């Protein structure tokens, strides 16, 4: 097997005295869409926060193209090609849609490329094009989620990490967001998708990991996990 794009090896993260992640290992191959599933508080967001260096690893390593990136400044991980779309959207409410998108391309110097990516984002989410001059804070929840995803894309990442993109959205919008992610995946973008909505995530993922209280309990292809009795009982409902 090739060197994975991203590999977590025996990663442990602690907040004060509490162990949030216990020696987890996980790989993402280039071009894959990998889902990270689990209940609230299982450590899904912490995993993403550790990868983008917002929280330090207590032990274990985070490898990017095979080289360890532990201890980098968070903004340096963006430069490496890791784009983290955080939980709760976190759009810059007091700036316009287009300013949010342009700030997503902060590290890029290729003006022409940024312009064309901006148009690509508007093509992916036409509602953002209609609201480009509006303040991001005035958008609906679904539109803010689209803006957050589009803003992460503006960095032209190698790996896009999404934290609960379906959270708090109406079912119709969840479908819309998932379709957009699927389209990005078809275009070859590598993604690590954190979701509580296991149904929606497994429908578009290639592989998935299941986190339970900070440890990886199960892993496998999305198709296999969809039919796994334990997963069905715990996350998929009847």
């Amino acid at each position, binding site marked *: 097997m090739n060197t994975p794009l991203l590999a977590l090896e025996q990663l442990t993260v602690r907040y004060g005295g509490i162990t949030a992640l216990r020696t987890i290992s996980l790989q993402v191959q280039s071009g894959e869409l990998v889902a990270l599933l689990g209940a609230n508080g299982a450590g899904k967001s912490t995993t993403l926060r550790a990868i983008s260096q917002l929280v330090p690893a207590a032990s274990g390593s985070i490898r990017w193209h095979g080289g360890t990136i532990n201890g980098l400044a968070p903004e340096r991980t963006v430069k490496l090609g890791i784009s*983290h779309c955080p939980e709760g959207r976190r759009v810059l409410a007091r700036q316009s849609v287009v*300013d949010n998108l342009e700030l997503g391309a902060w590290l890029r110097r290729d003006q022409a490329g940024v312009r064309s990516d901006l148009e690509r984002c508007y093509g992916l989410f036409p509602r953002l094009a209609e609201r480009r001059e509006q303040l991001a804070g005035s958008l609906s929840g679904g539109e803010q989620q689209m803006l957050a995803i589009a803003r992460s894309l503006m960095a032209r990442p190698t790996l896009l990490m999404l934290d609960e993109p379906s959270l708090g959205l109406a079912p119709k919008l969840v479908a819309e967001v998932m379709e957009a992610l699927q389209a990005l995946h078809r275009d070859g973008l590598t993604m690590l998708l954190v979701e509580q909505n296991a149904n929606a995530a497994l429908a578009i993922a290639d592989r998935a990991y299941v986190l339970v209280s900070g440890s990886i309990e199960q892993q496998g292809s999305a198709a296999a996990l969809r039919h796994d009795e334990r997963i069905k009982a715990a996350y998929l409902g009847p």
Partner: protein
Amino acid sequence: MTTDLTQLLLNGLSIGAVYALFALGYTLVFSVLGVINFAHGAVFTLGAYFTFLLIGGSVGANGLLAGFQLPFAMPFWWALPLAGMAAAAVALVIERIAFRPLRDRGADPLLALITSLGAGVVLVNLIQLLVGAESYAIPTTALADLPPAIKLLGAQVRTVQLLLLLVAAVLLVILSLWIDGSRSGKALRAVAEDPTTAQLLGIPSARMIQIAFGLSGFLAGIAGGLVGLSVSIAGPYFGIGYGLKGLGVLVLGGLGSVPGAVLGGLIIGLAEACVPAELSGYRDVVAYGFLFVVLLVRPQGLLGRVMPTKV
């Protein structure tokens, strides 16, 4: 009558413009960190002393540096921006010593109020130790190539006051354009709104905070040099009164609002100028009384916004 009115307006606007510069320095740091930098007044004071030294002034007899004079003297126009830059450097050191260690340890941001107050006290006492407590006047010969007063709209106005107003206005306009229109200005606003998200976009938050401190120090230094020229440096503590006034301006205009800082500065300056000369001891009463009344009606300040609670 119109003469008096012109003079009065100009008095008010020129001192108000300095208050605005001062408050804008507070605003820059407040908007990125959410705390007031209490050492700001001391940086202002330093700016005045730096200007005094750079134009060739010599230190009096009471400090460790008694009789000291720089081996060169430069025109005021060179001295003022240089003093601003030196003040910016001091502000960066204050950030490094009084703010960053707390941030790195994840301490409550409010603790920076105490550490910055401490840094301010140290600076003021250092000034006293080095150059003594006497007042220094920046000689008006610093502007030898300009007439001391010119006629404007039928009134004789002091050139210094016009300069104060012009320099402050130019800086305020440049700064507002930069914050609202430029890429790095937008990045600074992103850090102010949400530093973690800014980092996830690749914006170096720590660097942007340094830029805010540097600019804030530069503005304070320039304001100090201008006031020193206009009314003389009344001793190491002379920045404290302006510091408090700047704080009042900030609250009046609305915390964290750039146009608010400017409007607040001009209003307080004009309010003070309306106090007749024989009652000049009551100027501060008028300024703070005005602040008091406005806050009763608009607690968020004139242009401040009520912070929405997150959903």
